[in-house]
């Protein structure tokens, strides 16, 4: 197939959005009850609460002229399903995800954990992720990518 407009002056990324629902509780056992309440407010409720999270994954790479793709969506979807959605969806982040046994599952820390899980994707380079916790709050993480937020 014709590589067409392929042009190294342009960098192309593929973005894909996923959803999962999970519960969490923001609580630091090293802090007093009063400090936890003051710091985390409603999020410190001992029984936890949940969100419908939206995860955005951005990968980059050469567009394969034979397929027109940076990465086959079936490969990306399968990888994200296995590494993130299956272990996180309809789970308690505090109780069911080992990474949050000693780390408060804020969405900042959730971003770092999801990035760590997706970084080894073999078919393209992980550029950055964005996690939307509610329609008013979202967080982005690009690891140590030098231009991770710049494309």
């Amino acid at each position: 197939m014709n590589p067409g407009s392929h042009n190294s002056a342009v960098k192309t990324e593929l973005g894909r959005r996923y959803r999962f629902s999970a519960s969490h509780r923001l609580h630091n056992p090293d802090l007093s009850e009063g400090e936890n309440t003051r710091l985390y407010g409603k999020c410190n409720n001992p029984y936890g609460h949940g969100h419908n999270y939206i995860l955005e994954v951005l990968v980059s790479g050469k567009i394969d002229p034979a397929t027109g793709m940076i990465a086959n969506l079936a490969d990306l979807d399968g990888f994200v399903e296995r590494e993130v959605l299956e272990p996180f969806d309809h789970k308690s982040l505090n109780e069911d995800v080992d990474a949050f046994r000693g780390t408060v599952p804020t969405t900042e820390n959730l971003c770092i954990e999801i990035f760590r899980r997706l970084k080894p994707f073999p078919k393209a380079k992980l550029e950055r992720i964005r996690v939307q916790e509610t329609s008013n709050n979202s967080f982005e993480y690009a690891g140590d990518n030098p231009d991770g937020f710049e494309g």
Partner: protein
Amino acid sequence: MVLLTRKIEFAASHLYHNPDFSPEENRRVFGKCNNPHGHGHNYTLEVTVAGEPDPVTGMVLDLKDLKEILEREVMQRMDHRFLNYEVPELAGQIPTCENIARVIWNLLDPKIKQGKLHRVRLYETPDLFADCYRNGSERAQA
């Protein structure tokens, strides 16, 4: 520097098929997108231009000019078209979101004279999009 973004929507059909692949390979690689009669999407395009606001007009570029460029370069070329057959810039390429975004970047970049094209984001669905940026070394010179 200020970033300015304008959004447009267009509807188009396409199919994914590589004539160098066997029918089985086409189905395996492209799945439902290989349906020979094609299928369509409502595409959403976000075009971001970077620049300093002109001290006289307060504008990075006149949105009216950007609107006209998008109408001429993108809408007239792609809206209500079958991308494989009716858009010469995509001839011989698989019209994936990545390739369409790249074609749009190449069409717009030379036409934007005030400010500099910063990002082209093309949504094929709300859950799938492609971004184009100026590559690192080029950006440094920009």
